[in-house]
């Protein structure tokens, strides 16, 4: 009996210990390796594998479409076998990244700051990435990839959230975001929207254009009054939303069956809808968008292969393939020559700094207003998250 209680106590101890480990991992407290060591100074031998956490369409090895494959060449050149996992929202990515299972994470601007603040991202030495030299200067050292003057990643590409509609069902062709906000009742039950708190910025951008007296200068910097007005717009839209989407496959199927006829999208989704006639375009108000950054996890088990991947994906050939497939502007001018579509760079206005400056890249909303106002406090991301569950009701 003594032995039995002993073993059971040991089992209990083991359970408590593993529970504590899980909790520790969940809190992201284990990032000691990155704290003071700084970026790697030189590279060693490749480890033979690398695991990547990415948006859908960023790491394609031909398993989705045999024609679409830029991973195999990397594996052959470097000997690093790639395993990848895709995610639907930045919040999901954040939770996955904290497990420490991924060496490389591609993060949008609403995630990078959180990755760095929670010590999940390692500082990156861009000198070890030869292809970094070719990247557009206007993408380098930005507030979403550089913190305290240190680089925490390298740019991937940038693009806009588009408005997609079913050409057979929606007429006349929409030109403005109003078709999914003020006029969404026309397609009651067939409207879709992106299921993430960051979508609140889309409504804020709409109000920025339609209600200038609210004084919204940056859709990620909303004070109490502006935020309330934005939430109101979204609550009205909710009555007409059939489904929200965060899983891109769900949006593809909803557009193909006709359950959804209009809503926000990415170019890659529009490219994948086959069974119905859809069109995706940039509405006249402009749009929110993203500028993505390849980061290396502070818990990376394969840092050398991680650097190899970063260098590979920054190369004009690979970057052209990945960004053209996803439907976004590449990170360097040379990539335009490697695109299969000669008008690729014109379509996405690659290198057009003026256009790029009009896109409102995803950022993490914080209390200290991003637009520089100091007389008011802005709603931070936790309040955005809370409001989002309330909007969905």
């Amino acid at each position, binding site marked *: 009996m003594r032995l*039995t209680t002993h073993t059971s106590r040991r089992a209990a101890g083991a359970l408590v210990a593993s529970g504590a480990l899980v909790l520790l991992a969940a809190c992201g407290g284990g990032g000691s390796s990155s704290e003071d060591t700084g970026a790697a100074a030189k590279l060693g031998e490749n480890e033979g594998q690398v695991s990547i956490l990415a948006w859908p369409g960023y790491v394609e090895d031909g398993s989705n479409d045999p024609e679409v494959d830029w991973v195999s060449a990397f594996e052959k050149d470097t000997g690093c076998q790639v395993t990848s996992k895709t995610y639907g929202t930045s919040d999901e990515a954040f*939770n996955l990244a904290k497990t420490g299972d991924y060496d490389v994470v591609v993060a949008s601007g609403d995630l990078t700051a959180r990755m760095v603040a929670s010590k999940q991202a390692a500082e990156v030495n861009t000198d070890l990435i030869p292809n970094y030299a070719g990247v557009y200067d206007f993408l380098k050292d930005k507030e979403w990839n550089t913190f305290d003057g240190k680089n925490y990643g390298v740019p991937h590409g940038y693009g806009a959230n588009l408005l997609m509609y079913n050409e057979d069902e929606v007429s006349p062709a929409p030109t403005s975001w109003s078709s999914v906000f003020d006029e969404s009742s026309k397609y009651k039950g067939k409207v879709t929207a992106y299921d993430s708190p960051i979508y609140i910025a889309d409504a804020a951008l709409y109000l920025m254009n339609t209600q200038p007296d609210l004084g919204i200068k940056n859709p990620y910097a909303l004070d109490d009054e502006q935020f309330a007005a934005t939430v109101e717009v979204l609550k009205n839209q909710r009555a007409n939303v059939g489904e929200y989407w965060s899983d891109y496959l769900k949006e593809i199927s909803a557009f193909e069956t006709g*359950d959804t006829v209009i809503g926000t999208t990415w170019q890659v989704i529009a490219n994948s809808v086959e069974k119905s006639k859809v069109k995706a375009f940039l509405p006249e108000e402009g749009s929110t968008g993203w500028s993505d950054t390849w980061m290396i996890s502070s818990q990376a088990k394969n840092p050398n292969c991680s650097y190899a991947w970063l260098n590979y994906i920054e190369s004009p050939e690979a970057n052209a393939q990945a960004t053209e497939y996803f439907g976004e502007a590449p990170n360097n001018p040379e990539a335009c020559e490697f695109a299969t579509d000669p008008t690729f760079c014109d379509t996405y206005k690659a290198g057009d700094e003026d256009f790029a400056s009009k896109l409102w890249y995803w950022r993490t909303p914080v209390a200290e207003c991003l637009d520089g106002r100091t007389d008011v406090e802005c709603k931070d991301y936790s309040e955005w998250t809370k409001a989002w569950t309330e909007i969905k009701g």
Partner: protein
Amino acid sequence: MSVDTTRAAVPPSRGTAARRASSQLSARPRLRLSLLLAAPLTWLVLVYVVALAALLVSALWTVDSFTGEIDRSLTLDNLKEITTESLYRTVALRTVGVAALVTVVDVLVALPIAFYMAKVASKRAQRILVIAVLTPLWASYLVKAFAWRSVLSDGGIFQWAASPFGLDTPGYGLTAVVITQAYIWLPYVILPIFAGLERVPNSLVDAAGDLGASPWTSMRTIVLPLLVPAIIAGSIFSFSLTLGDYITVNIVGGANQMLGNLVYTNVGAANNLPLAAAIALIPIVIMIGYLTAVRRTGALENL
């Protein structure tokens, strides 16, 4: 048993050690009992009590939304939030409503099927019917939910079959959730009712008939009262399983949220584990209330 192994290391033959252990045990009934109960009790305490306690405690924590770090100081903020914010009331009521509706639909569908299986069908047909009821359980839950998604979609089979009668598909929404959940949990309701009906002696129904009761009267006054415990057992399954579901809602529920979805978004998207734990307490409280009410009726004792 463990005493057995320690003693077994000593040279004397196995038989003697075992015999000695058994005589030791027969002399000490308390030791015997604690050895017998140790494994199930450890399991029960670890799996149920510790898990519930962990849930309760983590509901009192908070989380830094920017870095996602958990702050372990205890506060009632989360509990206050879920009790005062109208959002949680709305969603909780919606969830209970859907669960109740699923239960009602399931019981109404299950009663005639179970009655036919238990009282009308031949032995052979009965076996075939039991297998037929169980077969859907072999398919994955996800497959069934996605099947209903395509059935109920715009231009799907439902619309095609209903259009001659001037009806249309309900589309994705709460109706679709009720249909799908009622379908998925139906076997769990049919089986207890079937078992309960088998225990109702035919002689009672015959006697009622001999005394002049119409089939409906003997059904109402004899069979149904005897069936109440079985119906309640079935309802516990369909009610509690629907109460915690979030997958079906995600697949066919359109833009609607149920309690499970709030837990899921708080864990998966918002990274707010403490708030998710607090929300998870709502269905637990509802279930405790339901079981207490059921106990009052005395149905659990007849089970």
